[in-house]
């Protein structure tokens, strides 16, 4: 169990760094979604399925979608 938690925590660290290092906002929305997925896995391993479910829906779907739509709006207005 400890090993699984450590593995999930490592994944979160890797994908979080990936988000920070992604330069273009549109691609950042995609890496953010992957980061959200690894966070959901981490919450599962520490036995918080309720939080994992919220994280899965909000962090991997709603927030990246909002970012994508905002980028389209800001980029498309000119």
């Amino acid at each position, binding site marked *: 169990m400890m090993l699984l938690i450590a593995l999930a925590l490592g994944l979160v660290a890797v994908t979080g760094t990936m988000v920070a290092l992604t330069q*273009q906002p549109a691609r950042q929305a995609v890496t953010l979604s992957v980061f959200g997925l690894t966070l959901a896995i981490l919450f599962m391993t520490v036995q918080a*399925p*309720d939080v994992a479910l*919220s994280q899965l*829906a909000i962090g991997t779907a709603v927030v990246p979608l909002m970012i994508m739509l905002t980028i389209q709006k*800001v980029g*498309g207005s000119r």
Partner: protein
Amino acid sequence: MNRRARLVLFAVVAPVFAVLFFLAVRGLPSFGSEFHPYADRAVAVATGQRATANVVSSVNFDQRAVDTLGEEFILFGSVVGTIVLLRPAPEERDAGLRPAGGVLPTTRLAGYLLLPVSVLVGLYVIAHGQLSPGGGFQGGVVLATGWHLLYVAGRYTALRRAAPPTVLEIAESIGAAAYTAIGLAGLVMGGAFLTNFLPTGSFNDLLSGGTVPLLNGAVGVAVAAAIVLLLSGFLEQAVVLRRTEEPLAGSSIGTEEPLAGSSIGTEEPLAGSSTTVDDAEQR
């Protein structure tokens, strides 16, 4: 703040934060230990007297239901604020649906197949909040995101027609009001706001937990409507509304002076915008 100043600030703040964080973490009970005074009491109440199999729901909607009321209204307030911010500016108008760059048939098929599945999962998660992981918030979000598979399948107009903003606003308000009403009913019947006044039923039954399933339903309606409303605000801005060169006749606000922010959008390009325009066109 330039790059150098930011690095200096980071170099100063990071060690301070590291030391304080380390000290704070050392004060916590050790990870995975047996000492959980709050959990012991909460689990005993949830599984015993209140007959709520999902202890997290029992804490959220029964033992600490007032906290959830606060969270519900945080969501309510932030969605209202976002909708106000996303309303069409005077120089924006409905320019018709932006031509969608063609949806792949496989994407369309996946959208249509997954729409009923995700709606069912959302309803299931809301209805079983007292038994299994999930509840009104999670189920509501699943319901709302599943609903947007219609947009993924290229049916923006259908999405818009099936759930007009007015209906969603009313649904969100009814959900939030129902939570408060159940709380007031607890005040009348049980002597305290949001007290669990209904018979709790037998453990692990669909109708158990007293007011927990009712509150979950109220939150489910409010959250699903709130998320759909929120995304519809963003979708309308991104897909339908476009900035016109001149303000429309009769909009007195727009003719006097441009809004703050509108000049930024038209004159100087934002950093990284050249790539995002390409992305937007590709889609």
